[in-house]
């Protein structure tokens, strides 16, 4: 069954059809939530909340990109969760180390030494952690653009902001992360070390 047919069936209340959509998109939705929240449990909660909300409001879906619609839903769930955590700062949003040491990330590529692979892994972990220090608007824009590879236009539609706002938020996020990187030259390749 194609996506449009599944959506129409879900709009009639068919949970099984909606679950097929869940299976198709849950990895992407969860990864967006994880990069925004930086915590497995919080990301899982936001993902579950997003799918429940999506099913509840699927009659409001009027066509277009279903993936963007889902990502908007999970982004909103993350906003809510971040506000909740902001009110309760005792709960940590630090990245969990185990998640950032996946085997594929640590193993060297074909043309890479083990030392280079380890440095690359450290660099990526640093970027993922530093992104969590960004303000939510900048963080979400950075995740959608540079981690998920979405276009400016897609992000503007998803976040319901202007194209200029997306560009501004993204450039600010990149500048802050880059400055943080340059302050840790030991993480950078040799050509950056002064």
């Amino acid at each position, binding site marked *: 069954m194609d996506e449009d047919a599944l959506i129409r069936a879900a709009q009639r209340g068919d*949970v099984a059809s909606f679950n097929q959509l869940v299976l198709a998109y849950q990895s992407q*939705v969860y990864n967006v939530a994880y990069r925004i929240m930086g915590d497995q449990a919080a*990301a899982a909660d936001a993902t*579950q909340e997003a799918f429940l909300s999506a099913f509840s409001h699927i009659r409001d879906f009027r066509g277009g990109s279903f993936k963007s619609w889902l990502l908007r839903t999970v982004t909103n769930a993350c906003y809510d969760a971040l506000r909740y955590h902001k009110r309760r700062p005792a709960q940590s949003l630090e990245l969990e180390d185990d*998640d950032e040491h996946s085997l594929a990330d640590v193993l060297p590529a074909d043309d890479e030494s083990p030392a280079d692979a380890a440095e690359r892994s450290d660099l990526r972990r640093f970027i993922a952690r530093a992104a969590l220090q960004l303000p939510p608007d900048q963080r979400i824009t950075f995740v959608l653009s540079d981690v998920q590879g979405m276009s400016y236009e897609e992000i503007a539609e998803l976040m319901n902001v202007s194209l200029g706002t997306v560009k501004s938020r993204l450039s600010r996020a*990149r*500048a802050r992360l880059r400055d943080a990187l340059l302050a840790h030259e030991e993480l*950078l390749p040799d*050509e950056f070390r002064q």
Partner: protein
Amino acid sequence: MRQRLTEEELISAYLDGEMGSAERAAFEARLTQDVALRRRVLATRLLVEEAGNLPAVALPRNFILPPDAGRIRPQAGRPPTPFLRWAFRFGSVAATIAFVALVASEALPPAAPAAQPEMAAPELLQPMAAPAGQAQPPDEAYPPPAQAMPPTEAADAGPAAPSADAPAISPRSLPQAGPPQAADAPPPQADRPAPTRPLAALAFVLAAVLAALGWGRRR
């Protein structure tokens, strides 16, 4: 700051291929001369590349909905009726107004009661008193306030509060004077909460509940 932001946006536009050919050529010309700018551009490019290569995280579990998910929120997604929508909006506005009124009533000092002669300045009351030669003896039923009523805190603190030695002023001579008070009448309670405060608080609570309901429905 503005110049810096503009330059950061230029860097992003350059890395994302959002520049026209002329603008790109001009920016690359700057890169050959400005070492610091070149370093920032290279570091930003490294950041964007590595962010795009962050490993995907494995799912901790499946997120499929239970078969009875349709019954979990049978009314979710149904917009409120127009009446409720306006009621919720009115609740938000009413809550704001009531809150401001409540805060204002708490913040503003209570108005001095007009029927308390000891709160008034003697120089203002002097013309109202009878001439010295025609001074009437104090009426036993309406003794001077300084004798009949214990001085309030305001009277103690105020420099213009009349003492027992001050010329006696009969409350009768005051046009705004209230009903006569017996000698054993309780002292006036100037700091008693105004009757509007509980009403404002009640209105605020009711309106806030209504606004919260509307907020919950919008979510």
